[in-house]
């Protein structure tokens, strides 16, 4: 995709390579402006909408029909929203952000069909754009899908929750959008510099979002703890990247992959760099023993943010892990496969073990997320095309299952106005059967029971592990799944088998929450029963820019 360069060396820009990210970025800026404009929202909305419509019409005239349509729809929607909700600007923000994310999702699919779809059989095409900064391949596609879907689920889910806790502010949606864009950019980033900057964009937004409830001490603690640990992890990661650059003389991942195996490359420097990078990324996706921040941060952060962190951060973190190890370090396989395998084994066992002894549901889900990071790592250490598509698919199913679980948790938390423990679940199956059903379904999916999305994910990851000869790791994975199934099923059991204790009122379910929770529940079942379409997509996605 290198196009003709002009005399100054300024390149032509392949807009299609990052078209999906442009929509939420622009939306974040516009929503910020709307928040500042106050009552004169129309003065912002009308010109911006007009500009978007004009852009859309121009795009349609140059035969880019779908992106043009997205721009036109969003351009019309913005003033329409301002007119429709004159008294509740927060609804304008939420709808605007949601529509922008939907637009990003549409553009992701457009990008796949227009640019990257495979011709006939075989893996999808790949696109290498912007002087190697962007690689549009399977990792990018699935990270975008997962992250945008998660963000789209989280925004309506948290709307009522934030308002009830009185912590809603108009900066919420822009920050969430920026975090989403950072994650999606991380999925496409193909050199160390872009990777690091994209990583910082989303972690910086998440520091703030985790500490969003400023008057809640736990939230404050979560923000600070996440900031401190994550900043240290970033520093370690950056140091590792610097050493890899010293060893190879390049920051471009495919070039590192070519250089790092050569005899002329100082192997010890590269190995130390690899070790530091491993520590850094293990912190980010919370592999044990680098997981210690996770339970406290997940518990303290507002629950919708926790859902976003658990589902989307995992996808973005594993995107960078997959890309680093499969593209840049395949020749150092003998070094990182054993290390990551051991980390995965510790993570799976330790996470499942600690989840059993928790009382608070948010902490249980935090430890569950740690355990799932271990399962996803099996697909990475398999170091094969199957492993790659298994991990990508696994992250998608995990994200949807987790979003459903946290959605149900939000409804319970709103009733309780505080932490949710097992006592609050007692007899929920009778009080609110629909909510209990969704929560139980998400638990089944996270446990990996057949006919749910989680089962297919786990099956693929384990199969990739066995094919790669890592039977011991898969055995540990199965043991950990059995242990984990205990606490997942206990949650379901408490809801349906025990009697409710006293009058507690019904869980509070707003329209947005019930829609998103239902959608994710339907997705969990659909991906569990009819996974073929997405499985094909996942196996097509086993194509990397090398």
């Amino acid at each position, binding site marked *: 995709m290198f196009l003709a*360069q002009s005399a100054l060396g300024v390149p032509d820009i392949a807009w299609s390579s990052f078209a999906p990210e442009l929509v939420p970025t622009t939306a974040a800026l516009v929503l910020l402006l709307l928040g500042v404009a106050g009552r004169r929202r129309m003065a912002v909305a009308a010109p911006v909408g007009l500009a978007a419509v004009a852009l859309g019409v121009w795009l349609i005239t140059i035969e880019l029909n779908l992106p043009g349509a997205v721009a036109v729809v969003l351009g019309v929607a913005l003033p329409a929203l301002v007119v429709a909700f004159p008294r509740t600007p927060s609804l304008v923000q939420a709808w605007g952000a949601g529509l922008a994310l939907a637009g990003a999702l549409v553009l992701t699919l457009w990008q796949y069909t227009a640019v990257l779809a495979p011709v006939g059989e075989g893996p999808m095409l790949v696109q290498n754009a*912007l*002087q190697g900064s962007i690689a549009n391949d399977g990792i990018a596609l699935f990270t975008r899908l997962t992250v945008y879907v998660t963000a789209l689920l989280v925004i309506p889910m948290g709307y009522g929750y934030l308002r009830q806790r*009185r912590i809603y502010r108009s*900066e919420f949606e822009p920050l969430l959008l920026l975090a989403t*864009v*950072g994650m999606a950019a991380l999925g496409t980033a193909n050199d160390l*510099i872009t990777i690091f900057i*994209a990583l910082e964009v989303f972690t910086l937004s998440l520091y703030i979002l985790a500490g969003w409830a400023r008057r809640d001490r736990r939230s404050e603690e979560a923000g600070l703890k996440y900031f401190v640990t994550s900043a240290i992890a970033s520093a370690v990661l950056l140091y590792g990247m610097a050493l890899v650059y010293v060893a190879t003389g390049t920051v471009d991942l495919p070039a590192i992959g070519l250089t790092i195996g050569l005899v002329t490359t100082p192997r010890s420097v590269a190995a130390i760099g690899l070790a530091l990078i491993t520590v850094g990324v293990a912190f980010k996706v919370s592999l044990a023993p680098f997981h210690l921040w996770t339970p406290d941060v997940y518990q303290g952060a507002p629950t919708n943010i926790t859902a976003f962190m658990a589902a989307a951060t995992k996808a973005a973190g594993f995107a960078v892990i997959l890309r680093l190890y499969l593209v840049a370090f395949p020749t150092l396989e003998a070094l990182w496969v054993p290390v990551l395998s051991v980390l995965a084994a510790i993570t799976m066992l330790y996470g499942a073990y600690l989840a059993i002894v928790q009382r608070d549901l948010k902490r249980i889900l935090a430890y569950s997320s740690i355990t799932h990071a271990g399962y996803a790592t099996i697909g990475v250490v398999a170091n094969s095309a199957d492993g790659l598509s298994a991990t990508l698919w696994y992250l998608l199913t995990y994200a949807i299952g987790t979003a459903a679980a946290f959605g149900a948790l939000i409804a319970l938390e709103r009733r309780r106005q505080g932490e949710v423990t097992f006592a609050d679940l007692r007899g929920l199956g009778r009080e609110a059967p629909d909510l209990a059903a969704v929560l139980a379904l998400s638990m089944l999916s996270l446990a990996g029971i057949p006919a749910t999305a989680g089962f297919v994910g786990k099956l693929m990851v384990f199969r990739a592990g066995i094919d790669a000869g890592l039977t011991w790791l898969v055995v540990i994975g199965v043991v950990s799944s059995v242990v984990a199934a205990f606490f997942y099923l206990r949650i379901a059991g408490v809801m349906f088998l025990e009697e409710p204790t006293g009058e507690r009122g019904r869980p509070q379910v707003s329209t947005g929450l019930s829609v998103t929770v239902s959608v994710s529940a339907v997705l969990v079942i659909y991906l569990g029963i009819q996974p073929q379409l997405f499985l094909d997509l996942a196996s097509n996605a086993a194509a990397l820019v090398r």
Partner: protein
Amino acid sequence: MTGHDVVFLLVALTTAGAGIMTVTSKNLVHAALFLALTLTGSAAVFLVLAADFVALAQLLVNVGAVAVLFLFGLMLTRAPIGREALDGQHRGLAIGVSGGLFVLLSVLIIGAFGGEGVREVTGPGVNEIGIALFAQWVLPFEVLSMLLLAALIGAIVLARRSPGESGTEAEPTHIELSGDPSTEAERRPELTAGGER
């Protein structure tokens, strides 16, 4: 001794003097200003050595951002400024650590580069770096602007009070200063006690 050497010597002496003044100054604001001068001096050292990009980066980042941040921090946090605000309790330890560091770095640098003379700088100039930044690295550069935007929003969110949040729920901060009442209400009870004096 060439003119080049004389300039270098002057710049280096100024920098070193400013550095000493930074740590010996008793006034926090003066120390911060001397720090700015020290950093400017090291930028000038780079400039004398014909490393113009490093000099500019040093000026922009360390003088423009860090030193100004210090001053803003002093103003905004109501840190004790003025004479005698800095204590010297750890002076001996600080002298020991910095002296040790100085000896260590000197030995390392002289050991590594001691025998070599001055060489021409062959790295890329500001021009090339600028072009590379906006051609080769345009995507990270643009993503960086989003990072700054996120940081800006975050700072506003953390600093600003929302309308519903009056701050009355928060405990007033007590500063224990030899038993002095530290809140306004305690210091001047007549304000809250009405007219019952």
